[in-house]
């Protein structure tokens, strides 16, 4: 068996604020194989973006990685000094963020920003760098690439800017791409173009990807496996179809039932009651128990560990949803 490209073990990223410690990521573990695409999903406050930022070493005070390992190709990124991380970011791990306007520098040309990546991370000469930039822009579907190198970000539309960001992320041929809500700001027809492009680029380069998103439908079309976070913990993980078709955790079930599905319209959506608890003050036991239709006494006492379920996924629940059940309501 091949070794995982990325192995996150018991990651804890906390933010120490005056109002208390926010345990944004609190014991998250997963493996990512070479060439694998994983979706990291959950609602606001689940900790999905913080996992991505932790891997990239982009946690600033008051945030701090309190514990756990981030093994990337054998090295623990959580222990590396900043200058070593800087050599990894951009070269071995590429990043795509939600808002292409804020991730590009508005006062530098696209060509300058692309060239910078290659100058820092490769030994190519100026001519070869320019050729690679043009080749990359063309492969993300930007025509007249040589002319466009002289354009500034504001001269591109939102969809085109996100293409540029993807081109920059892929320039140095990284082995891992972390994409945080890459299409959330885009219209649906543009989203579908960008998702197709990302899928093709990843496959061509044989890279792995972590797709951080709140949109289960996007995940369903893009990823091989899925990890669901709730209040900083993994509540369910497994192959994408199994998790979506027969979720074992009541939270996953609730999320899927909350999405209106044109193929099976219900008069009412099966909503999850209540709201996400305050992460500074989580209830003892299972964090989901206050909103869970299946909760019993033990859920308030012991936190359920991630255990194997039928269908090949793992879930952290004392009373997983049976496969035959299609709603979150108890049978």
């Amino acid at each position: 068996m091949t070794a995982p490209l990325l192995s996150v073990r018991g990651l804890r990223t906390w933010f120490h604020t005056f109002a208390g410690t926010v345990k944004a990521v609190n014991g998250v573990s997963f493996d990512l194989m070479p060439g694998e695409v994983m979706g990291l999903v959950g609602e606001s406050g689940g900790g999905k973006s913080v996992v991505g930022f932790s891997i990239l070493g982009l946690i600033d005070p008051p945030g701090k990685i309190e514990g756990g390992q981030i093994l990337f190709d054998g090295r623990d990124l959580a222990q590396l000094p900043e200058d070593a991380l800087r050599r990894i970011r951009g070269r071995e791990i590429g990043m795509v963020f939600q808002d292409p306007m804020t991730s590009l520098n508005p006062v530098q040309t696209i060509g300058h920003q692309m060239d910078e990546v290659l100058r820092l991370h490769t030994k190519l000469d100026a001519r070869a760098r320019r050729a690679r930039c043009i080749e990359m822009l063309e492969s993300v579907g930007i025509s007249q690439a040589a002319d466009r190198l002289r354009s500034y970000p504001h001269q591109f539309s939102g969809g085109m800017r996100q293409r540029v960001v993807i081109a920059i992320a892929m320039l140095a041929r990284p082995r891992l791409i972390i994409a945080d809500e890459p299409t959330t700001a885009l219209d649906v027809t543009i989203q579908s173009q960008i998702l197709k492009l990302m899928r093709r680029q990843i496959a061509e380069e044989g890279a792995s990807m972590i797709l951080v998103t709140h949109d289960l439908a996007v995940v369903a079309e893009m990823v091989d496996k899925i990890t669901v976070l709730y209040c900083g913990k993994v509540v369910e993980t497994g192959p994408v179809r199994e998790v979506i078709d027969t979720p074992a955790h009541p939270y996953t079930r609730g999320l899927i039932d909350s999405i209106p599905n044109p193929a099976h319209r219900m008069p009412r959506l099966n909503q999850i009651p209540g709201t996400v608890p305050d992460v500074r003050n989580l209830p003892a036991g299972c964090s989901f128990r206050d909103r869970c239709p299946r909760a019993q006494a033990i859920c308030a006492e012991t936190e359920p560990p991630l255990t194997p379920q039928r269908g090949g996924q793992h879930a952290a629940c004392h009373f997983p949803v049976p496969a035959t059940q299609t709603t979150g309501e108890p049978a």
Partner: protein
Amino acid sequence: MTPMLEVEGLEQRFQLNKGLLDRITFRGGRPRLRNTTVHAVNGVSFAIAPGEVLALVGESGCGKSTVAKTIARIYEPTGGRIRIEGEDVSAYGPRQMLPVRAKMQMIFQDPFASLNPRQKVRDIVAEPLLQQLGPSRRAEVRERTAALLARVGLNPEQAGRYPHQFSGGQRQRIGIARALSVNPGLIIADEPVSALDVSIQAQILNLMLDLRDEFGLAYLFISHDLSVVHHIADRIGVMYLGFMVETAPRDRLFAMPRHPYTRALLSAAPTIEPQRKTAEMELAGEVPSALSLPSGCCFRTRCPFAWDRCAIERPALRDLGGGQSVACHLIDEPQRDRM
């Protein structure tokens, strides 16, 4: 029966107030002034019956929110007619609009920006009603405010709090209570659930449908999310570049979309289903600028079927029966449809 809302040939143009130097361009060595009229809405017509939910869908810049805001008379319409329960309000001033606002209220997208941060929740919810009834009936208004907060799922004891003490979903409930306070027949909801997490989105959609049944409300529901629209709407209008390109009852639109744009929109929407039901149809390119509309059909620059006629003649909305209307020349020449 008089429709709750009737819109006829609605047009909305905006002037970009740019200075002379911004507008000046040189073509062939001669200075020209660039056109700065944004054609946001270009002749949109529809009607909503009492108790009906009509959804307008489309991508950013298609004019759906402008339609909503023009009907709510936040904007002055450039052309066309708006009738609320038969009463033509298109030329009404703010004072004349006041009694009309008892029939029509609006819910906004951003629950953070649409509530005054310095007003207590009870005052926010009471304000439209106080405007209608006058300050002498304050006691009655207070009672109704408490009942409304309870109805939308908030604790009336929290009425003395400020908006920032509530979550996004709760704030949207406050916005709904405010809209309901005057007992309107029509609610214009502009992307009311787009800013919310899916589990909260489901709660708000359920609440809106419950309220519809309870109070017989009609909704004009603006959204870019097709699955949300499929859940809530009775009828759907698809907009592109300020034009209505197709309207149909919900199930008909999803089962047999006729306009190429509707088809592309449906096939681009991601789904959690393992297999897609619609044929894959990908659009190249992006929406043209509303500063200079394409000649003929608004969609021809991205349409995979477009031919010379589409550049010359602008297709009108035509009734295909079954409540479906489409603005596309393919209806005349179905042999050109190669999918």
